């Protein structure tokens, strides 16, 4: 019997049995991708970087549907960890990816200058939108990995 590849995008199918909390959980997911402070393409880079850090293969194969596409060459560069020097990445994207990797290690460890660089580029609302998005993207990747293991 084939099993479903569980990712941050489709883990909701596993969670609908929760009942009333499932709908607001999806509402948050839609809201973080549609807020105006951090472009969805930037969040997609963060999602893929978190997937790499989690060694989440199904997640790495996923591409979120974006209004403005993300070139596959740029994704490959990200996953080769070339984003620091690749001119395809903007300074804002670099600041956000640097922050993402600190966030993944531990939010407590994030240096003030790393956070400050994000705030300087995205503003306070953008900073909050980013940490909200990272929290829910990272959380859904974690749950997807757990449910993948539980269906083995």
């Amino acid at each position, binding site marked *: 019997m084939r099993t479903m590849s569980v990712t941050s995008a489709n883990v909701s199918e596993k969670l609908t049995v*929760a009942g009333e909390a499932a709908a607001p959980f999806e*509402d948050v997911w839609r809201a973080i991708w549609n807020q105006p402070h951090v472009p969805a393409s930037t969040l997609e880079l963060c999602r893929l970087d978190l997937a790499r850090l989690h060694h989440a293969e199904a997640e790495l194969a996923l591409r979120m549907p974006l209004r403005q596409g993300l070139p596959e060459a740029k994704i490959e560069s990200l996953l080769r960890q070339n984003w620091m020097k690749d001119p395809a990445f903007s300074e804002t994207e670099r600041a956000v990816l640097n922050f993402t990797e600190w966030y993944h290690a531990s939010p407590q460890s994030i240096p003030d200058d790393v*956070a400050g660089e994000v705030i300087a580029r995205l503003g306070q*609302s953008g900073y*909050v939108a980013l940490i*909200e998005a990272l*929290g829910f993207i990272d*959380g859904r990747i974690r749950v997807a990995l757990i449910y993948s293991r539980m269906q083995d």
Partner: protein
Amino acid sequence: MGAVARVQAPQGSTGDPIRDSALGLVIETVEQIASLNRHAWRSSPVRASLLEIVRLRNARTVNCQFCKSVRYDVARRDGLTESKVDQIRDGYQESGLSGEEKLAIAFADAYLFDPQGVTAELASRLKQHFTPAQLAHLAIALVAFNATSRCAVSIGGMPENLPVTEISAP
């Protein structure tokens, strides 16, 4: 962790800890996150004391002082004592917590430390003890608790210690 808050919460008070925090700066997401937090407590097929144990396990792991200091009233009414709270720490397997409480912490730890490392034995115990609805609710609640506590830590400006404070479930 920054000693000074990196962003300022909006002015005004609604009485809701999420809306009144810096998360209130993002009006496009704050109502959805507040609603999720409310449903985590109000629509739970998992007993409140168990949910609180999972929340506190997360709070201690993320080291969110605000989250660690709070006790939800519904969890206390459901039997969560400070003696039990003290046992939600490393070595909990040998504590006096019940088998169900230890299993809930094991689920939280899988999420927090090694989601790829869920063993067949743990998966089997989880599926035997909890219904699919309970497991799914625990997963949703964990994401909500973890994401918001990480937000609080990322915003910074937390005191080193806070007194234990009971609050009403949203």
